[in-house]
Structure formats: C-alpha cells, structure tokens
C-alpha cells in the first residue's frame, strides 16, 4: 500500500471513529451502560457529608472525561482532515489525551474504592501511558514527514 492509499485509509478510520465516539457519548448520556448508573446510585446511598475525596474524584472523572472527549474529537477531526497524521498539534492532543486517561483511571479507582470498598483497576491507565509515549513517537514521525516533504 502506498502513502496516498494509507493516508486515505487513516482518514476513513478517523471518520468512522469520530462517528462511533459520538454514538458512545449519546449512549452514555441516555444511560445505556447500567453498570455506571449502579455506581452512582451506590454513591448516593453511601455518601456522607464529609466524603470530600469521593466528590473530588467524581469531579475529576467528570471533567477529565469531558476534556478527554473534546480532545479525542479534535484529534480525530484533525486526523480526518490533515494531509498527514504527524503534526505538532496532533502530538500535543495525543499527549493531553494520555494525561486525561491516566487521571480518569486513578480518580475512578478512588471513587469505586470509596463506594464499593473494592479495588478495580482496568487497563485505561496503560492506554494513557501508551498515548503519552506515542505522542513522542509522533514527534519522531513529524521529523520524518518534514524530511520527506523537503526531499519532494
């Protein structure tokens, strides 16, 4: 597969991912995933006036989730429109997304521990860490892209 075909494929996948992301957000808003709702109900039952840690972690999850979705939206939008995936803006968006993922996972683990007294850690933190590493890899790609453009 040559560069043009691959770029077209990346753009197509970005478009599909963008649509999937919007659908996922809508499903979340209408409460399609019952597991998350049960955590919220549990929190309402167990919440104490002094349970500040739970409220802070919940707020962190909420704001980072919104920031993460906005960043992911901007990232996919850029990927579907730009000529190349290796740009400085995409590098920065990836780095930010990685940081949001890590904060969400930590805050979520704290929140679930407060509500259910159990430690539940998924691999979301790892995806965040990988995204952060990939932002550096993308910087390397940006340099290669510049080199390629200058050669042509």
């Amino acid at each position, binding site marked *: *597969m*040559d*560069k043009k075909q*691959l*770029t077209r*494929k*990346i753009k197509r*996948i*970005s478009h599909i*991912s963008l649509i*999937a992301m919007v659908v*996922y957000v809508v499903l979340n808003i209408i409460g399609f*995933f*019952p*597991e998350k709702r049960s955590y919220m109900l549990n929190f309402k039952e167990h919440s104490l006036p002094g349970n500040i840690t739970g409220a802070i972690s919940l707020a962190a999850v909420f704001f980072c989730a919104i920031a993460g979705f906005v960043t992911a939206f901007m990232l996919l939008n850029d990927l579907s429109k730009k000529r*190349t*995936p*290796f740009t400085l803006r995409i590098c920065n968006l990836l780095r930010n997304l990685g940081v949001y993922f890590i904060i969400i996972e930590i805050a979520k683990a704290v929140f679930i521990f407060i509500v259910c007294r159990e430690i539940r850690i*998924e*691999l*979301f933190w*790892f*995806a965040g*860490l*990988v995204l*952060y*590493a*990939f932002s*550096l*890899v993308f*910087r*390397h*790609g940006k*340099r*290669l*892209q510049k*080199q*390629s453009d200058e*050669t042509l």
Partner: protein
Amino acid sequence: MIKSTVEEKIKSSSLAIMVISALGALLSAAVGAADLMGLGKLEDDFSKKMMIKTAVSNFIGAVILAVAAVIFYRIFISGRPFTHGNIMAVRVIAVLFLLNSAVPSLVVGAALGFAKTSIIGAGALFNAVLFFFFAEIMRYGNLLQTESDETL
C-alpha cells in the same frame, strides 16, 4: 525539538513504560492466579463464575502488558518505533483487547445466561479500536522511515 532530543526522549520513555508494562504483566498474572486459587473459598455459583471472568480478564491483561513490554524494549534498543515487528505487535495488542472485551463475559454468559451479564466491555473495545488505528498510523510512519533511510 531537535532529532537527538526526540530520540533520547523516546528511548527514556520507552524504558520507563517497558518496566511498568513488565511489572504490570507480572502483577496481573499474579492477581489472575490468586483469583483462580480463591475459587474454592466461594460457595455460590454466580460468584465463582464472576471470579473466573475476572481471572480470564487478568490473564489477557497480563499478555497485553507483556507484548507492550516487548514493543517498548525494541524501541528502547533501536530508537526506531516504526518497524514491521512493532506494527504487528500493536495489532496483536488490538486483537487481545478485542478478546478482553468479549471473552471474559462470554465465559460467564455461557454458564449463567447472557441476560445477566453485559457481553461487550466498552472500555476494552475502545482500546482495541485505538490500537488498530495506531497500527495504521505506524504503517504510514514506516513508509516515511523507509523513504528517509533511502534518501540518506
């Protein structure tokens, strides 16, 4: 950022993530084994099946982290992220995330009935798509890297 700084950053972050991934893989496998060993202590069938689900999920997580450790080890050694081996490994991670989103629930669902359990884990599915997507972008990077090597 100049070339050597980017490469240095890629190498150092790869080393850090490799160590974290390797430790995470060991921890995940240990937790999975502990889940299986704790099965005898559980009395009701539902709890047993849910424990098996968690154990399967932990074992798949351990394999994902082990593969990630291999990728980052390779990047740390060579300083080149866009290689065919790494692209294949990223695809393997995507497939494993895909398995992680469905297999643990299928294990429980087959025994208890699918109405009682969610079949697809949304988080793992999202990670699967993310890694498939990165594999494509890495392919593009691989083309640029080849072009750069041929030019030099």
